[in-house]
């Protein structure tokens, strides 16, 4: 018996049709799954979604993990996760050190200016230890 000739596209179309018909039957079986199986699958999905939320949170923000009663920062995203909070911390520390150093220099400079004024003044430094002169200065300031 001779078989009818069909193009590749026609053959493919027939195969797809057959596959779709089988798939439709298989779809019909899904609602008929036992109730307990359906509930367990639903619980698994809920659990997985909760885990995904945690995974996303960990990926984009370091989590505070309780370990042995003390809080420690725990990076959840490798090098870049740690860098995300270490770099600002480092910048803050360097800034504070810089400000402290600058203030120290300014104070030293002010003291040096006072010393220079004292040493270059016509008044001898020993005059400032004289009680009479100190009294004179107080009176002068009040006036």
């Amino acid at each position, binding site marked *: 018996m001779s078989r009818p000739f069909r193009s590749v596209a026609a053959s493919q179309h027939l*195969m797809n049709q057959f596959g779709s018909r089988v798939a439709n039957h298989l779809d019909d*079986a899904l609602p008929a799954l036992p109730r307990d199986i359906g509930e367990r699958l639903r619980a*698994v*999905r809920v659990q997985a979604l909760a*885990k*995904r939320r945690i995974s*996303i949170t960990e990926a984009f923000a370091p989590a505070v993990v309780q370990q042995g009663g003390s809080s420690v920062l725990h990076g959840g995203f490798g090098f870049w996760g740690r860098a995300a909070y270490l770099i600002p911390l480092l910048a803050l520390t360097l800034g504070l050190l810089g400000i402290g150093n600058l203030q120290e220099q300014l104070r030293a400079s002010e003291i040096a200016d006072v010393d220079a004024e004292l040493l270059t003044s016509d008044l001898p430094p020993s005059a400032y230890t004289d009680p009479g002169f100190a009294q004179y200065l107080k009176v002068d300031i009040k006036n």
Partner: protein
Amino acid sequence: MRGVEKRAFKRSLYHVRNQESALDIVQDSMMKLAEHYGHKPAAELPMLFQRILTNSTLDWFRRQKTQNALFTRMGDFEASEDGGDFDLLETLLPDRDPDQNENPQNQADRAQTLRVIEEEIQELPARQREAFLMRYWEDMDVAETASAMGCSHGSVKTHCFRAIAALSKALRARGIFL
């Protein structure tokens, strides 16, 4: 992911033929997806899930480490030659009006048909079954199926062709005309 887990469960069940094991595989796959790929865009998740499910099923078989009948089926993951010289395409032509099946009076027939289809799907070699279910039930294209199965496009086409040939032949032999 809604609804995906039921198809995943049935797919695993066709492979392992044990409800508890199938549930374990689906749970394992979903948790792996959430844990390792949770930060990926939602559009990428279905494909990743299919790949993880396939690998988890393979892992299950590997864990069995026994030469029982089910594991022997894993040998089917290798290509096998299908005999027979019947005309596949003849068997694929629909013999019935598809709307006929929607008649409520045929519900019992449909249940019986479904049971036979499921039995015959379980009889398929594992790789053929996997390729067929991904292509036609999960509605994945050849490239996606190949990616999930870790094989070439040609292999997917071959597996699908052989699966359809075997299914249509077996169903006709049992009086099922889709």
